[in-house]
């Protein structure tokens, strides 16, 4: 297992190098200087610009520029945001907690929903309840998350007034107080439900099928023969075995959450990484854009790797050497 993990980890390096080359090339193709956050836009004196370009290395050959960029990048120097006029790292760190909060809440909601529905369906398969849950899941899977988000804002924020329709926190509350955290929770709930509902279906169906499969196994028959209450068999014996494979979904969820966060954050005007990314694209803030593309690519890669590794841990038969 260790050997396999190490090999997979090392396999990530060429992927990352390739992605960094792609990102760098894309930034170079884009109109304008991709690294021009350092040049004062108010000074239009051509001599000044030429001098700054020389100083910043824009006249170097492309491989040299790439090398300079990537070495800076590895040391945490992502350049300066052209829009915010501060180091990109600061801008990202400011927004990152919001996105993490949203992602974790979405995961929690996915797990709660999938658990309740999957346990019920698994215990009572082929009943009306099970069919209804399968139907709901199917619809939730099919409806695009951005359409669901629009409807969610319309019904829950505007018609029912249960949730705020945007932002991450009320402006009036003071930071650090209990009200502040409640307000943040209140703001994150609706986007998290929309984001979390997206992946609920696959979890639910997986849990259901696994519970049904397990309930036919010998250990369940033994437990029944010994007179263990049915509820205990399902809630303890079977659940233990059915939960473990669910862990593997976590890695795939990573990638889905990244894509989902870009859309959901924008619709809910929730100030996180996803919104920052779209913002940097439309305002041509190249240093931020490059750093975020690298970051999101890295997270996707890490998610896929995590999925593969967890797969091997959970089911040793799949392990390949």
């Amino acid at each position, binding site marked *: 297992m260790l050997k396999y993990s190490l090999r997979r980890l090392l396999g990530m390096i060429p992927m990352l190098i390739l992605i960094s080359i792609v990102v760098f090339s894309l930034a170079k193709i884009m109109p304008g200087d991709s690294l021009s956050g350092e040049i004062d836009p108010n000074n239009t004196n051509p001599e000044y610009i030429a001098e700054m370009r020389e100083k910043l290395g824009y006249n170097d050959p492309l491989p040299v520029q790439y090398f300079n960029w990537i070495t800076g990048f590895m040391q945490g120097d992502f350049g300066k945001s052209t829009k915010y006029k501060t180091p990109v790292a600061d801008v990202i760190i400011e927004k990152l907690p919001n996105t993490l909060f949203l992602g974790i809440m979405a995961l929690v909601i996915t797990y709660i929903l999938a658990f309740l529905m999957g346990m019920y369906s698994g215990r009572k398969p082929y009943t009306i309840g099970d069919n209804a849950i399968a139907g709901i899941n199917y619809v939730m899977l099919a*409806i695009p998350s951005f359409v669901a988000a629009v409807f969610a804002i319309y019904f829950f924020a505007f018609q029912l007034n249960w949730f705020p329709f945007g932002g991450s926190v009320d402006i009036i509350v003071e930071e650090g107080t209990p009200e502040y955290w409640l307000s943040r929770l209140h703001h994150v709930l609706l986007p998290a439900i929309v984001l979390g509902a997206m992946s609920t279906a696959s979890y639910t169906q997986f849990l259901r099928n696994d519970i049904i499969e397990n309930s036919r196994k010998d250990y369940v028959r033994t437990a029944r023969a010994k007179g263990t209450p049915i509820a205990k068999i399902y809630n303890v014996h079977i659940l233990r075995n059915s939960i473990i494979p669910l862990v593997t979904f976590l890695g795939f969820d990573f990638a889905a959450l990244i*894509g989902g966060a*870009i859309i959901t954050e924008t619709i809910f005007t929730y100030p996180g990484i996803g919104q920052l990314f*779209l913002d940097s694209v439309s305002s041509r803030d190249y240093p931020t854009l490059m750093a975020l593309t690298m970051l999101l*690519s890295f997270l996707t890669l890490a998610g896929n790797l995590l999925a593969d590794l967890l797969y091997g841990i959970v089911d040793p038969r799949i392990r390949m050497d």
Partner: protein
Amino acid sequence: MATTSTLTQQKKPERSLSPWQIARKKFFKNKLAMISSAFIIIVTLLSLAAPFLAPYLSPIPDVSKVNISSMNITPNSDHWLGTDKSGRDVLTRLLYGGRISLLVGFSATLLVISIGTIVGSIAGFFGGFVDSMLMRFTDFVLNFPFLVFVIVLNTILMGIIDGLWVLIIVIGVLSWGGVARLVRSKVLAEKENEYIMAALSIGCSPFKVIVKHLLPNVMSTIIVQATLIFASMIVVESALSYLGFGVPQSTPSWGNMLSSANEPDVLQGKQWIWMPPALIIIFTILSINFIGEGLKDALNPKSLR
């Protein structure tokens, strides 16, 4: 004469149904899939006929111009679904939007399926070095954060080629990985059969074996996959257009129309502007998915329905 013809009829053994005929019968029996097919056909026909229908549907059939005199009209007998904030008829725009959304979805699906099938069948058939090279490349494409790169690429290429085709090519080129893997695994299983060895031993070229013998046998998988991809491509198009990174704003598409819901004022008070595109996206996606499920059932010889 009459007796001989009845005789020959009796002698002739009853033809058993071909696999495709069985599949068709099964599909026609699936009510949900049939209703969905009818819905998709109607939406497609209406969208295709948009330029001819527009003059009958609204007094202002031209949806490319802004009409200040007819802004934000609620649905009435003149404008069945009202007009939007630029004074354009919502129903007419919905039909024109359907043309774009369905065209992007269809073309991107075609591209994804073509690339995926070619790469997957070549990798699966030849195996060895070719296989591992092509599959490395597929992994590379699959590992990209899809949405992130679509948005970035789309922004770069937007000025160079006509907006619509940029979108089609970009989403097509970035999403064929799954199909390639699927086709490869099917081809790997299929090529172990004796008939492939027979075909090779009488001197068929690899190209002919793949096209004539292997692909027809993995076709049912590809068809089902194509339906599901069609649905997801429509989602991708409308999501990107909704965010403002897809089809150019001047061209109506379902996603573009829905983006008017970004304004709280429209979302809260003017439901007739954003509700129609939202509902038609949902129903189209659901229908296509139901058709896909129906096809999967129909083409699976083991399913009993």
